[in-house]
């Protein structure tokens, strides 16, 4: 495979093994596309059920824009931190601590996002906005919850990767894995922007 065929932007300074990394990262893009279809469908279902409140709590009751704004900042900040981790991995491959440090920033920020999200979920249950109440709330919980589960899964992945960096250092395999995790992490940001605007902002507009 010639040099220009290797994935643009993925040149992370491997010592060989680009082809293998190329195949794996391309495969992960395909997975992300498939996952995006999944989110797209849940968005579509939410769209059809936006009015199905069945007399229960509606968007005005469940939307706390302050909380959602802080969550957005935290999740976008997490993505930003991850970008720095990727750059550290590329330019400072000798020092694993720099990469790990930025990964810790990304993880902490995402954890903050999850905590606030759980607080919101709890608040919804106290005002009777439980998913059993209406089709609208079912779709809301499913969409926001699906994203939250993805973030939680990503955090477990990040913990495992931290362990692997500590054990193996920044080897080619690890770099390829971190690159794929980065794709996943930024993808979740894109989905959140959709949720933020189409669920919460549009809900109270």
């Amino acid at each position, binding site marked *: 495979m010639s040099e220009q065929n290797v994935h643009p932007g993925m040149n992370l300074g491997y010592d060989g093994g680009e082809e293998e990394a*190329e*195949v*794996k990262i*391309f*495969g992960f893009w*395909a*997975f992300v*596309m*498939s*996952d995006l*279809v*999944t989110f797209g*469908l*849940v968005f579509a*279902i939410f769209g*059809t*059920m936006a009015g*199905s*409140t*069945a007399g*229960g709590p509606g968007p005005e009751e469940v939307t706390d824009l302050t909380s959602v704004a802080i969550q957005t900042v935290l999740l976008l900040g997490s993505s930003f931190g991850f970008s720095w981790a990727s750059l550290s991995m590329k330019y400072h491959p000798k020092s694993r601590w720099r990469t790990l440090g930025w990964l810790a920033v990304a993880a902490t920020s995402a954890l903050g996002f999850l905590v606030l999200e759980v607080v919101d979920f709890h608040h919804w249950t106290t005002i009777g906005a439980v*998913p*059993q*109440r*209406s*089709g*609208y*709330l*079912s*779709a809301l*919980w*499913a969409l926001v919850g699906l994203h939250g589960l993805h973030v939680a899964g990503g955090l*477990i992945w990040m913990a*495992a990767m931290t*362990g*692997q960096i500590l*054990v193996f250092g920044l080897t080619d395999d690890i770099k390829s894995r971190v690159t794929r995790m980065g794709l996943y992490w930024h993808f979740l940001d894109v989905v959140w922007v959709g949720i933020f605007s189409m669920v919460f902002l549009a809900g109270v507009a």
Partner: protein
Amino acid sequence: MNALFGRLSWSELKLFETFTHGWSIDTLVAAGAAWAVVLGAVAVAGWLTWAGLWGRFWRDWLTSVDHKKIGIMYIVLGFVMMARGVAEGLVMRSHQATALGGGVLSEEHWAELFSTHGTIMIFFVAMPFITGFMNYLIPLQIGARDMAFPMLNQISLGLTATGAALTMISLVVGVFETGGWTAYPPFTGAAFDPGPGPDYWVWAIVLSGFGSMFSGINFAVTIYKMRAPGMTYMRMPVFTWTALCTSILLTFALPPLTVAGLMQALDRYLEFNFFTNDQGGNMMNYANLFWMFGHPEVYILVLPAYGIFSELTSTFAAKKLYGYESLVLATMSIAVISFAVWLHHFFTMGNSATVNVAFGIATMVIAVPTGVKVYVWMATLWGGRIRFTTPMYYMTGFFILFVVGGLSGIILANPAINWQVHNTQFIVAHFHNVLLPGLIFGIFAGIHIWFPKAFGFRLDERAGKITALLWIVGFCLTFLPLYVVGLMGYPRRSSAFDDPAFLPYMIVCLIGACMLAAAFTGLFVTLWISIRKRDELAVPMGDPWDGRTLEWATPAPPPHWNFAVIPHISERDAFAREKAEGRPYVLPERYVDIHLPPNTPAGMIVFVTTTAFGFAATWWIWWLAILAILVLVGWMIVHSFLDHPEVVIPAVEVRRATNVWIEAIELAGEGVTRDDEVSPKNRGYASTDMLVAS
């Protein structure tokens, strides 16, 4: 409910249904089926123990990541499940022949039968068959050593087996769902069916669906990234093209099924209101999601069969494929348009006339590329040197019957007609008419073509031809009468009818079903005869049919590493050109060590944990469900920390194996001509008939 066994109790065990529910044909069928599953499993395990084969079975098959072995295991799984599907068909036809005012089965049992029959035939027969073919053929046809992700490939097989296992378990413990293979809520919702039937269905479908999605990603990446040098897209074999389109469809069409299944699970387990009757639920969302998957699924299944028919016509007519470009374009068009026709599955469910017309037209449009393909095959056969081997028997049956099925599809695409015949036996006739001749005949033809490649000996032609004829005639008798009774107004899925005019047709159907059961048995008779005559039928040199694509340029069976050196491709049908120019089988100049992925128990771990999860979730055994997830996730994390050294095949070993093969070919002297193709002279070294390969 108890903590240890959830809602499972002894009364759910179907083995003793004749005692607990009284003797009747109905309970006898239920208990008999349960015993068949248990005894079948015990017999296989007993045989493996008796023959001392567990170790080899584990090392050579269950933990292998070789795409060829995984492909074969998919097809074996398909046949095991097909045995059940065919048996169910026979039982259903027997019921219908007695259904004037009643029938031998209870209504519930009848409903369970048509639901499991549909679910099994689509998800656990047709899907494993096509996935198996794609697994076996893609790397060989594109000149690769394995899939892009060999371990993921094994995990996909594990997940497919999970779905199949759950439907088999439902035959012994509890019941399956009764709402058809589509399982429309609210009928399958918690309010009308507390379970466990729909729960079995949800987990069988969702878990095996993940496997199919991973297969799609894996195959697509393999075709995009692993092609041999010089194999540009327009040089790929046609089967690989159809496999690529199917892989894209798998990647994008499985998510709707997963979403529909998981929302149904949320409704059932946590009382969400996606598809319920009240509280703002909307079952039309389910219908849309299901068919957004369901229609592309039809093409997921049939496109690889089209690929097989394309390879078949050009091989057995000894001509290059007429209109390769049109065929590729037609395949791609079908893949794209297949996402725009789903609504024709529910024209009658409250859409506006405008919407119906739009989807009706799209449905007619998708028939155009399919028609293009039929002409491509006819033009390929035209003027060719056709040999009437078993695959051509299936091809002939396919040609005539599939066109009939396709035309009935065009009829159904018209919403006005669709309103008249929807939910009648006409629909049952239509989809069996496209799936059996279209897909299943293609698979069986493909097995006759590639079995010698996989196992080193041909299948017996006489037994194969008798079996093919049984399939064709049996199909006609079983399903064509349904068009007539459908037009006469016999609703599908009804357990009884009161119009005596239907009865003669149902008796013809039963005779046809018996023939199909005989045809299914015929496949195993063919296999048995062929195994006994395997020395006479052996084709170790690997090219029994004067093939055109790369897989024929390997010994039969191919070595684990497929190719001694990765071939360089300079044109389409490269192997055919080499043979025509008289320079095939050139020894490589130098050999290098070959690195292959190591065996892994990943697939089995996924299979065991997800089956445990599915069973536990169905029966509310929560501790087991949680344990299964923890074990799976924990194993994945531990696995990611371990080093997995590749298996290295030394260059010397590769050279030795290659030399043995090439020497055999050189010793053979003259290759076999097409006149002697089905005689014992055929040892797999073809003297080509193709004067001009291009």
